[in-house]
């Protein structure tokens, strides 16, 4: 359990963006948000809205154009590079490709702010590095070359590097972007473990809304005119995510946090039956552009049961049988429902 969680980071009317020549290109209205220690925070927003810029600004890679960032109550402008590197670690979307660099060496670079002028790895540094490798379950890879790792293994190595850096805050720009589903959940699980067990504050950007909603402690939702923060559930209730998609084709369902394509309904169908088959038949019907009717009117579908192996589509004048959902849907898509 997280006890005594206290504010470790706060943003006060932060203005982010780029300076090109004389002109300041401010990306967003002033942002105000905060993070407590041990929280897993997802940063959500549409492409190009400035998530990466925000994360880079929090890491100190670019200066705020206005407003303040406080780490443990101290302004980011008052930190030296070295001090900041002991406070916050960073993983960008940039892939590190160095031949002849071993996993151990990459993780050891996390010790940079803690080692002497030549970067000598002392016994206690070695312990920290081994611990970081253990926590990310990369121990057995330590002698492998970074260039030989899979995407997921490389990402775990990068996380081990921040662990070795021993910062309270980890900032990750789309840490799961190029991973397959299993890899995504593995990394997310790791991030969750670190925030729960090692009291790390992790701020990460993602496009995977469902994952963010189900796993993170807090969401920073960046919209065109504001930043809304809160537990994912609070934002769901407030309907905050609806603003994310002012698109006419995507529909966000704030009951279960799923998306569907908005399409003109072709009609409604009643489904008789229960269980897993019913659930997936409903999904298929939705996909084909029909809604599920609550009353038993024509046409209706009787899904397979013990005595019957077929999906039975009953119209007012005809009955058709299908051996799979695939066949059922192909038929539905072809025919206009009223003609059945």
């Amino acid at each position, binding site marked *: 359990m997280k006890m005594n969680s206290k504010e470790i980071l706060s943003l006060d009317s932060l203005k982010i963006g780029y300076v090109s020549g004389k002109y300041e290109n401010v990306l967003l209205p002033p942002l105000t948000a905060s993070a407590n220690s041990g929280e897993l925070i997802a940063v959500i927003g549409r492409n190009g809205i400035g998530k990466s810029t925000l994360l880079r600004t929090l*890491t100190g890679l670019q200066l705020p154009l206005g407003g303040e960032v406080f780490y443990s109550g101290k302004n980011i402008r008052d930190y030296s590079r070295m001090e900041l590197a002991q406070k916050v670690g960073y993983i960008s979307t940039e892939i590190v490709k160095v031949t002849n660099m071993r996993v151990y060496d990459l993780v050891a670079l996390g010790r940079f702010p803690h080692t002497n002028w030549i*970067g000598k790895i002392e016994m206690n540094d070695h312990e920290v590095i081994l611990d970081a490798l253990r926590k990310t379950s990369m121990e057995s890879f330590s002698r492998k070359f970074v*260039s030989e790792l899979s995407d997921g293994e490389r990402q775990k190595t990068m996380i081990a590097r921040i662990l070795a850096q021993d910062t309270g805050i980890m900032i990750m720009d789309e840490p799961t972007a190029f991973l397959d589903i299993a890899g995504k959940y593995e990394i997310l699980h790791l991030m969750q473990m670190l925030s729960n067990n090692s009291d790390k504050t992790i701020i990460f950007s993602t496009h995977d809304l469902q994952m963010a909603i189900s796993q993170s402690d807090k969401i920073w939702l960046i919209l065109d005119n504001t930043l809304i923060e809160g537990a994912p559930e609070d934002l769901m209730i407030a309907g905050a995510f609806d603003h994310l998609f002012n698109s006419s084709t995507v529909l966000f369902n704030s009951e279960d946090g799923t998306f569907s394509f908005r399409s003109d309904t072709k009609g409604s169908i009643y489904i008789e039956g229960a269980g897993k088959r019913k659930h997936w038949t409903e999904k298929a019907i939705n996909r084909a552009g029909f809604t599920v009717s609550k009353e038993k009117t024509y046409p209706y579908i009787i899904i397979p049961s013990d005595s019957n192996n077929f999906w039975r589509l009953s119209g007012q004048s005809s009955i058709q049988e299908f051996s799979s959902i695939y066949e059922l849907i192909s038929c539905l898509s072809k025919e206009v429902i009223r003609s059945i």
Partner: protein
Amino acid sequence: MKTDIKKQLSDDIKSGRNTKLIFTGLLLMVVIFLILDIFLGSVSIKASEVIKAIFNNADSNFETIILKFRLPKAITALTVGVALSLSGLQMQTVFRNPMAGPYVLGISSGASLGVAFVILGFSSNITPDSINSLGNWILVAASWIGAGSVMLLIMFISSRVKDIMTILILGIMLSSGISAIVIIMQYFSNETMLKAYVIWTMGSLGNLTASQIHVLLISVSAGVILSLFSSKMLNALLLGENYARSIGLNVRFARIVIFICTSILAGSVTAFCGPIGFIGIAVPHIVRILFKTSDHKVLIPGTILMGGTIMLVSDIISQLPGTESVLPVNAVTSLIGIPVVIWVILRNRKYSGQF
């Protein structure tokens, strides 16, 4: 899992042992080739005579050859090899470009422009042989400035253009542009200046006066010490600028240190020995293959030893021991370096430009 860790531990110990073994081997090679470089030459001198000459009681002819010619030349070769290779290693890391080196990027050309300004531009009675100690420092400083200017230009360009091949082509363009300027300067200079300059461009390890070797040794030592200080920064820069900053590196400071260091190393060598190609680019790759590491705490000393060795070998070959003729050392270094460079180019297609 347990056995994995045990195996890994033994691997660690083994690779540590290997590193020590390779270092010992390289150190031995440096010593052996240094001795061979003194013993072998156009005039064959018996080993016993060489030893006598060094310990100061031999036939005066042999003594002159050994002490006034071969020994200084061997020391120069060693120094030049160390300096060029180190500057190449630093450039490759700081530009994140496996093809970087003082010669290909035009840094040596920049240095030679500095030298051309001194020899062709200012004094009509300077020749490389007759320059006094102050003159040597002026020559070397001009060379640093020339090397530094090109280095700055390349740094500026590479902060905008990430493509390795583009930067290489720009390096070639810079070299050509500088040659054009030098040719124009030659056109307007008198005969003695021209002769002095042409002799300088031929690149030689053997024409240095005692005071020039003195200046070279001091400058290169300063560069080597500075480079030892840069190993931690270079390691961080391997990750790219953003990651380097995020782990606490002051990138601008690192760039300045490495910039000064490479300009001193490449500039000093070029000032006295002329442009010597392909050592700076090839040696760091050989060292990486040998040690299989990206850690500059290993690569820097490795490059120092390997660079010295290869330059000594080049010098020995260029003297064609036992014959009357001597090859230009530049030809030898090119023949040794170019195959390595080609190999790196072919291998790098797979790694899409990273090393």
